[in-house]
């Protein structure tokens, strides 16, 4: 298209004087956008008009300005043209997102904290369970101890029980002491050790019943804790009871110089 021809057609002059139709105006704007020459000519013409307008200009009365300012001040303070509304919405979006992210972070922190507490609780449960098991075992042990005590008490009080104290023998520690509960009817023999020195590793204590000057083996026993009661072999008519220190497992015949305690049975009752 011939730019020069377009310019000399006079359409640009008509445009700046506002004498174009709407169609022609759009055409001029379009041409001006495409062809810099046309744009330049257009700007030049507009500047002419601007110069016209500056000639001998008359100032309006002051109240006009006041009215205008009053009018715009009475508008809602937040009234912002479309352009800035999008800015406002964007700000809202930014704040919304920031708040959401903050909320998320807080939620995560709380979740981690709660999880920690949960782990601690679980550990506690494990250790408490272990403690519980230990306590149960102790209970069993205590139960059996109680049973033993009750049995010992029964023996002490049962009428058919003969209580035969065994005292220390010659050349043996004086504190050595034991008690035999002999059930005259059932012939059961219960042995209670008050004190016996701890035996060497390879030796063990053995109980004998002496009848007709003949020692009879009533069994070996192991001293583990105080106040133990041992159920030994039965015996019919013992004259006496004695405990000797024998090699582990016991002997067929007692080692007489290793006799620690001995006690006679009293038949006079």
């Amino acid at each position, binding site marked *: 298209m011939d730019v020069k021809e377009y310019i000399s057609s006079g359409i640009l*002059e008509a445009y700046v*004087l506002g004498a174009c139709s709407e169609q022609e105006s759009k055409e001029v704007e379009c041409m001006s956008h495409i062809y810099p020459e046309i744009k330049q000519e257009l700007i030049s013409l*507009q500047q002419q008009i601007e*110069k*016209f307008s500056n000639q001998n*200009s008359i*100032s309006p009365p002051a109240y006009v300005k006041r009215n*205008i*300012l009053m009018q715009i001040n009475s508008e809602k303070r937040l009234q912002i043209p479309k352009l*800035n509304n999008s800015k406002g919405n964007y700000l809202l979006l930014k704040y919304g997102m920031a708040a959401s992210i903050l909320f998320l972070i807080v939620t995560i922190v709380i979740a981690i904290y709660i999880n920690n507490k949960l782990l601690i609780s679980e550990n506690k449960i494990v250790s408490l369970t272990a403690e519980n098991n230990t306590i149960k075992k102790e209970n069993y042990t205590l139960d059996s101890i109680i049973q033993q005590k009750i049995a010992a008490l029964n023996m002490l009080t049962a009428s058919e029980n003969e209580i035969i104290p065994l005292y220390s023998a010659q050349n043996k520690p004086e504190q050595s002491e034991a008690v035999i509960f002999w059930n005259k009817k059932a012939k059961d023999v219960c042995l209670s050790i008050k004190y016996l020195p701890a035996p060497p590793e390879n030796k063990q204590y053995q109980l004998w019943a002496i009848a007709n000057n003949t020692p009879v083996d009533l069994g070996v026993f192991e001293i583990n804790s105080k106040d133990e009661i041992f159920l030994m072999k039965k015996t019919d008519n013992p004259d006496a009871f004695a405990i000797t220190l024998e090699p582990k497992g016991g002997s067929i015949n007692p080692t007489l110089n290793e006799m620690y305690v001995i006690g006679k049975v009293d038949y006079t009752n």
Partner: protein
Amino acid sequence: MQETEIKILIDKIINRDRKAFEKLYDDYCAALYTLTLKILGQQEHLAEDALQETFLKIWNSIHTYNADKGSIYTWMLNIARNTAIDKLRANKKNNKNQSLENNVITINKKIYDTQKTDGIGLYEVLNTLLPEQKILIEMAYYQGYTQEEIAQALNIPLGTVKTRMRAAMLDLRNKLNVSEFGR
């Protein structure tokens, strides 16, 4: 004002800076008022109303101003011109029907009456144009006629209107450059 200064001012006004808008008013109100007054045939009360409307329109549509199309001054002049012409037409409707020619003559008369003898006025320059050219400018710019409407009103071919208008503008431009008009 420099171009960058103007751009900053416009941005402020878009952001509803009322002080910036006041400055814009102070700088341009006279030019816009003068144009408004001319279009409305020196009727001050009408011109004051029109000027108020003009600046409110500027305030409310500042964000639509496109620097690509021209200067802010031209943009504001066009708003002032359109507002004034709308008021002129509305006012005419309220008044008795006058013939087109009568209007033109009346306005011409009014324009002549307000000629300043001191200083250089636009009308001195306009007056130096050929009458057939001058009337085109007046009808188009000050009364809002399109070229088609002028052709119809004056009963001359549209092509003639176009060429005369161009010649008129060229003439004005030359005379303005020669006589060193300007700010």
